């Protein structure tokens, strides 16, 4: 019996867009890779239709947390999670939850643009088709256009939908990956350093796009770039290694403004002011 997330998705649109609406929440999350503990006791409430940034020095488990949200860590052999990740009150790590369904509701954009070696059209339509898209060719065409428009890519590629996704520039490829993700209408989009392989202009385009996307989607972004976190995010989670261990934990989670101007934690202040990391 799978987790029926689709019924609650429709609630989302009738929830009056209340800003304190929680999209996803972790409670006492610990993550292990075999004997190695990677994440120690993380509890976060991610609000709906906001951009939440996760920042912190290298190797403190930012990506590990991100990948825990859509259960991508399941593919790492020996990885296991303790605690809960709740979405609409259901624990995503409960035994009856099918991770495939989780990933369909929580999309992901990766660090390096990774379009499929297929046409632009197929890059978008594949996700819909494998998830049982019902409709004729016209419906699928409409979905492809809607998704590409949603990712601000339509004008650039509308005349070459049959060309390979690899014929695009790096920034376009990354927006194609975003378009591919929104084509399956997820609730949450996870972004794992989506701009780290892009030049500043392409980065700017993605950042502008994120502001558009947050009207419809909850976005969680991991970034190395503190300016980026400050520019795009509404809330920021600061991660550090937990006292004398190699497991990462969230030391401070607040409005981005607060984190960057009046952090409560001394370590956060040192980090965001560039004194280390």
């Amino acid at each position, binding site marked *: 019996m799978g987790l029926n997330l689709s019924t609650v998705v429709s609630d989302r649109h009738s929830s009056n867009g209340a800003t304190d609406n929680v999209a996803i929440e972790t409670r006492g999350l610990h993550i292990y890779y075999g004997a190695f503990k990677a994440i120690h006791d993380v509890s976060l409430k991610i609000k709906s239709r906001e951009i939440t940034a996760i920042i912190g020095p290298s190797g403190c488990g930012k990506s590990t947390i991100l990948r825990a949200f*859509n259960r*991508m860590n399941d*593919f790492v*052999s*020996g990885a296991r999670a303790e605690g809960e990740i709740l979405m609409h009150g259901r624990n995503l790590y409960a035994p009856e939850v099918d991770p*495939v*369904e989780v*990933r*369909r*509701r929580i*999309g*992901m954009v*990766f660090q*390096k643009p*990774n*379009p*499929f*070696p*297929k046409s632009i059209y197929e890059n978008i339509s*594949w*996700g819909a088709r*494998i*998830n049982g898209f019902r409709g004729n060719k016209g419906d699928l065409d409409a979905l492809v256009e809607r998704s590409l428009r949603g990712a601000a890519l339509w004008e650039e590629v509308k005349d070459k939908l049959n060309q*390979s996704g*690899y014929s695009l520039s790096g920034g376009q490829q990354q927006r194609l*990956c975003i378009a*591919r*993700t929104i084509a*399956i209408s997820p609730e949450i989009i996870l972004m794992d350093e989506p701009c780290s392989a892009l030049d500043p202009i392409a980065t700017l385009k993605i950042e502008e796009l994120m502001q558009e996307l947050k009207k419809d989607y909850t976005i969680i972004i991991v970034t190395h770039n503190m300016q980026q976190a400050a520019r795009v995010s509404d809330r920021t989670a600061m991660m550090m290694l937990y006292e004398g261990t190699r497991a990462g934990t969230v030391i401070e989670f607040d409005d981005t403004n607060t984190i960057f101007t009046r952090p409560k934690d001394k370590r956060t202040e040192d980090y965001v002011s560039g004194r280390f990391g």
Partner: protein
Amino acid sequence: MSAHTPGGLPEGQAATENLRGRHRFGLAWQAWFLLATCIGIIGLTALLYNIVDRAFGYMAYEDKVAVATVSDRPLDELSQPELVAILQKKISKGAFNKLDKEQPFTSRSRDDVYALVVERVIQRKVVETWSLTESLTNRAKIEAELAEDHPQATLEFRSWLTVGFLTNPMSSQAEYAGVRTAILGSLWLIAITILIALPIGVGAAIYLQEYADHGTWINRIIETNIYNLAGVPSIVYGILGLAIFVRALEAFSSGALFGVTDSNGRTIISAAMTMALLILPLIIVNAQEAIKAVPDSLRQAAYGLGATKWQTIWSHVLPNALPGILTGSILAVSRAIGETAPLIVIGASTFITVDPDGLFSKFTALPIQIYNWTSRPQGEFRNIAAAAILVLLLMLLTLNATAIGLRNRFSRRLY
């Protein structure tokens, strides 16, 4: 002032010398690589020369019955009915009727009847053959030899690889022998081998690479052993095939279960299953490498869209691994085409004049024919063996070209 600081990098003159030394070192290696390539090319050229040298050249033949005693005109000028008439007159009634029964004379071609007249009436025998090199460079010596040894013989330049050679069935005389049954046998064998080995091999590779947990010792042992199996001598597979497919499963491999009554277990299906077993490790290892080479980012992208494992494998892993899988399979199948030892062990026929017509028919194959002919004492059999090798090489080349073309089409479609 020293040329370089102790424990540091060389400067000035020392640096120049160091650089020159490194370039010299590189050049020495480059020379070795060039030499290695040349040795390879020389080896291949020698191989081809050796084969072509035997496949063409002068041959001398003697007629037991002079053409003049049979016909007042040269045989070449006679029409089909005239040739049939000669045949009817000169061979026994029983033999004539037997030939007529095999295929009525009315439906036989002129060339066919001509060959029969030469074989049965004139009883032409090859008395000596010469290699292409000798034929081209030393005609005088050949003629002198011939005048001394076989004054009656006629000298003729002959290509042993002819259309007739491709379309004739086996014969006990080299001049009339062909490889039709062997070509058909080889084609059947290869087709069935591919049909058996490819799905099993690729299936196993997918399981081992995508599903099996590499951490467990049992899977590691399985993988290591598959690698080792790829190196087991082919004759061992032949013995296995003989014991299992030919003997133990005779009811199946002879076709008795399916109502075929005229064969034993030494059939195409037995040979194909043996060959499939032989190339299975190669296909698995190569396919596994190809699947391993598919970037993980593609799998992640697919999973991230809510694809199941099977959807990911089918839509992304397999299409991207396909060129590599095909390359590996081409190598494996090429090996199977030329494999002789297992076929000898499981008992492929060496002399067969009937075309194979199904899974359960007796058969022969090109390598078997070649092996058989090279071990005959008469010189002319080595000539047709060379011609058969050319056929085998051509067949290999055609199959490989097809597979490579197919592969390139797949890879173009992807990127």
